[in-house]
């Protein structure tokens, strides 16, 4: 299997301060990988490099078989929209829209017709167990429901990869586990790889394997990719 997202020898410094000292990381289709490390270990920088929001000082980022980091900002942005999904700590849904309208966004922005986008959004919300709240605004649902909406938005366009940055950081343990379970199951089922960035071991235990970052270097990795063959994802 070939990686859907890969960082090779990534180095980055903010001014004279080195943050990443040569990191290799590859995500296979359908696998969930936890990126673990204490504050200041370089997790966020690595995430930004992989997402194409920052350019590495040296090293390469490959997305779905193509070199990603040297592309223009506009082309990187377009790739991000089509080939990546994002889940952040605080949901980040658009408050003026309903949950369903939020989930439709990645589809509408890439030219999918309204009726088709609506149907796919509702199907994804159903899969994540929040179909009953599809037509409510963000302020009308609980934190856990909103976060499952954010997961639906990240997955609805079937991207090869989802980057989830502390996706349960604002939730209590029980609610957080429901969100993680929904994320892991739905992503694995459709062959989307997930990079789960967290400083919490309990959250990391939902991943198939983990990569531990300390002082800008990978210091440990364990676990194995799921054995079940996953279906190929169209980019």
């Amino acid at each position, binding site marked *: 299997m070939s990686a859907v997202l890969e960082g090779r020898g990534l180095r980055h410094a903010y001014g004279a301060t080195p943050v990443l000292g040569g990191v290799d990381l590859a995500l296979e289709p359908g696998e969930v990988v936890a990126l673990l490390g204490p504050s200041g270990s370089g997790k966020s920088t690595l995430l930004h490099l992989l997402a194409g929001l920052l350019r590495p000082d040296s090293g390469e980022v490959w997305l779905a078989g193509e070199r990603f980091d040297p592309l223009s900002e506009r082309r990187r942005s377009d790739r991000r929209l089509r080939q990546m999904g994002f889940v952040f700590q605080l949901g980040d849904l658009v408050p003026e829209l309903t949950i369903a309208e939020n989930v439709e966004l990645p589809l509408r922005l890439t030219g999918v017709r309204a009726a088709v986008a609506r149907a796919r959004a509702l199907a994804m919300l159903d899969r994540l167990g929040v179909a009953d709240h599809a037509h409510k605004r963000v302020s009308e649902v609980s934190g856990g429901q909103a976060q499952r909406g954010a997961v639906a938005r990240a997955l609805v366009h079937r991207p090869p990869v989802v980057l989830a940055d502390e996706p349960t950081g604002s939730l209590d343990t029980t609610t957080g586990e429901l969100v993680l379970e929904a994320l892991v199951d739905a992503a694995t089922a459709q062959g989307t790889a997930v990079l789960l960035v967290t400083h919490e071991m309990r959250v990391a235990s939902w991943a198939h394997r983990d990569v531990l970052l300390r002082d800008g270097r990978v210091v440990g990795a*364990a676990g194995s990719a799921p054995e079940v063959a996953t279906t190929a994802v169209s980019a």
Partner: protein
Amino acid sequence: MTVPMALLALLDDGPSHGFDLKRRYDALLGQDRELKYGQVYSTLARLERDGLASGVGVEAGAGGDRKVYAITPAGVTELDEWLAAPNPPGGRPSELFTRVVLALVAGRPADQVLDTHRRAYLDRMRELTAARRGGDVVDRLAGDYEIAHLEADLRWIELASARLGAIADEVREVGR
């Protein structure tokens, strides 16, 4: 202490015999440590001697007659008192703590001790997270319990890792 109290609690639910008590104990608390028949019968004999349970009859079973036990009023009091009293917090750190201190004293790489344990504990946590999704309600409760304890250990590992450089010399000094 737990086995006699567990049998009292099961008898509090209604009279029963050793064979049935063992089966129910294993289903609830046997996770990876099932009760041996010898222990069931010796415990029941002790409970009867101490007046906490008493034989109330005999039931025919596949392998012969089975003595049926019931909890006594003294047994109920004993069970209530045990449930009401707190289990003293553990206090003493685990062997992991001992190993880290000894590695520091012996001038061995304590960070490796921490890394090895982080690895092992995280692997175990992943196993439990996966297993918990399949098990029954008691398995899940037991899994939650172990995960919470692993989480505490892992948190300590992170704290100790972050402070190792600063405390190594001091730890050696304390042991002189």
